[in-house]
């Protein structure tokens, strides 16, 4: 059974690019528009990996990660953060919030899939 990836990003462009790259790689893709929406999706879905943006309305990536880690059902799901540039400050904050790893934007499909493979069993 193919793995399910939840992508959380407020940018339609980014969601579309993630969808294209991930579905081409054979993953089932769920989409959420911001952290709040992401937590709502998690009420009824059990993704194998979450890919999330940081800057989002309503609930940003940091808050979303903290929310996921507080939820006993999902606390063990790997979370990859999308960051622009190699922003060490952001990576550090994301790590402290509980992110498993990160993907530097702009990404290419191979790199995205490699990062997912790295954290998914």
């Amino acid at each position, binding site marked *: *059974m193919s793995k399910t990836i939840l992508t959380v990003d*407020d*940018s*339609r*462009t*980014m969601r*579309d*690019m993630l969808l*294209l790259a991930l579905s081409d790689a054979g993953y089932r893709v769920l989409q959420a*528009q*911001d952290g*709040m*929406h992401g937590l*709502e*999706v998690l*009420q*009824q879905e*059990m993704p*194998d990996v979450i890919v999330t943006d940081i*800057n*989002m*309305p309503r609930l940003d990536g940091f808050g979303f990660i903290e929310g996921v*880690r507080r939820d*006993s059902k999902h*606390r*063990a*799901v*790997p*979370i990859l953060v999308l960051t*622009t*540039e*190699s922003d060490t400050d952001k990576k550090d904050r994301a*790590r402290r919030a*509980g*992110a*498993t*790893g*990160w993907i*530097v*934007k*702009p990404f*290419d499909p*191979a*790199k995205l899939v*490699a990062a997912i493979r*790295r*954290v*998914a*069993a």
Partner: protein
Amino acid sequence: MDPMAAIRETFFQECEEQLAELESGLLAIEAGDSDPETVNAVFRAVHSIKGGAGAFSLDDLVRFAHVFETTLDHVRAGRLAATPETLKVMLRAADILSDLVRAAREGTAVDEARCAALADELRALDPNGGVEEEDDLSDLNFQPVLVQLDGLDDLDDFELTSDPRHVFHIKFKPRPSLYAKANEAALVLRDLRELGELKVACDASDLPHLTEIDPEGAYLCWDMELTTDKDETAVREVFEFVAWDCDLEITQEGAEGAASGADADAEVAALLALVRGADQNDGEPVSAGVTESAMTGATEEPPAAQVVPLPVKQAAKAAEGELKAASPTIRVDLDRVDRLINLVGELVINQAMLSQRVLEAGLARASAVAVGLDELEQLTREIQDSVMAIRAQPVKSVFQRMPRLVREIAAITGKSVRLVTDGEATEVDKTVIERLADPLTHMIRNAIDHGLESPEKRIAAGKPEEGLVRLSALHRSGRIVIEVSDDGAGINRPRVKSIAVEKGLIAADAQLSDDEIDNLIFLPGFSTASEISDISGRGVGMDVVKRSIQALGGRISIASRPGHGSTFTMSLPLTLAVLDGMVVTVAGQTLVVPLTAIVETLQPKDSEVHGLGDNARVISIRNKFTPLIDVGRELSYRASAADPMASVALLVETEGGGRSALLVDAIQGQRQVVIKSLEANYQHVPGIAAATILGDGRVALILDVDAVVATSRVEPAFFDDAMAAVG
């Protein structure tokens, strides 16, 4: 379409939305909005544009967005105050960003000097003097290289044997935080194994007695020996996500020392089995840490079980939650929507034709067929309404373009202007919105250029130095009403009148009411080169604005108060696809009169109708003389005048609020009709707004009430001349 091209298109659409958000956010901040979320939204807009632009290698856009983003980040962090001066720079930066987006979309060139100058202005706002930016930028420039590295990796895979082999000794001791972040030591081992030959020894000496195991703890430590053709960077990359959450030692050596690791894998497996067993004995739900990773690693069947449907109540609740989050949307090609609208239009016509045939067949109204048809009609109408609603959009998209225009014209004219918009959420058909942009642009230019006085004059008149232009939209009796008003000097009536006389538009001794004088500005030929300034002019006068509004089935009027300003009011139909009309008979022809124009219908009495001059007649309605217009003669359907007593009069209101009575032979009824363009295959016909297809399958014309009333004022001989000229 190639999926990447489609995403690129999405990106540009999204840019438009983000640019609009950026501008409205900056304007809100300028107006005193201190909500941190507003600044965040503004920051996010620029950040997203930069992110997407990076994906498509739009370097100019990325570079400028980056500088802008840095400035906004300072504002967001409170390091930079959002003063009016700062905001002015940022608003202009938003304009540049918008130019850059358009240039990227259309592949055109941008004014690089202007971009660079504004980037410098933004950097100058930086409280740190903008030093770090350069570093970040160089960082950005390196990004394409990252992609190339991946390519090299692939190459390596094909040349496994050609590289010299290295041996690494790796000591890896995860800390509890590693597991808390959902990383797994087992996956790290798996990835290392993919790099080459791996020997693993597990050190479980720290493992406490089973009963004392903290499920969140980390007790294992691995000693590994990796023989690989990859270099140390590649080995360290495997630990990229876990480096902070473990003790890691990597040493490289030449010797191929064999560890006692041969049995290590078996040991680990045994250990994991042990732990798993302990868990099952406890019967406790697994939460996290080592135990969980063991669980998920071993049990492959649960994912299927998780797709079991949720209890109905819970699912409903979740669905409700999702609704609240943001009503989900899909993007559809406009062509598809239009095809659907056309088809529904055909359906409405066909349904009407069918109803008429059934009626003609003499079936009773209560017959099952007739009742069924009634229901079909109801359904058809509902489908039509729903389909029309798809095309409805808030006027926001066109209103949003105006602040930039105002800034530009204010800068050119040296006037200080504040634009206030209201009713941006008011919805109207997309086509109406698109075709509103030009007339609105012209009217706003006009309001600033001609309406508002210079700052000196305003101060002298006791007005605030800053002029006010207000743009508003609202729904009123099935139409959308848009107003553009200014608090300027108002129409200079003596001047307007003298211009009109000069241009030969009115007689020198014409006695005109204030209202009539104000409306002279809509006359073709009123606005000419001598008064066209750089801004309002460009050869377009208010007559063109009026014509474009009329082409949309709308009306425009002006109200002005000397010293207080002017208000232009436009009233437009909500859709260009259907219209509620009164179906009437005139000289054997069936015509449709838009219901919105009709105030009331009446049966003229002999005592009420009076002749006036040669051909003109008036009708007295509640003691007010109203022009009586013979539609049959106006449209040249017949030569002789209709007998008012054998006719019906429709009291109509035209643009500017004037009233006239239209004389028709009989009223057939009211119905909603699908508007069909005459221009598509023919051309505009004077006095006719459009056509429609009635239940009998024949074409009926829709009367242009304003045009008929307007031409009826022209000398009757006009039509004969026109006919002669055409024929």
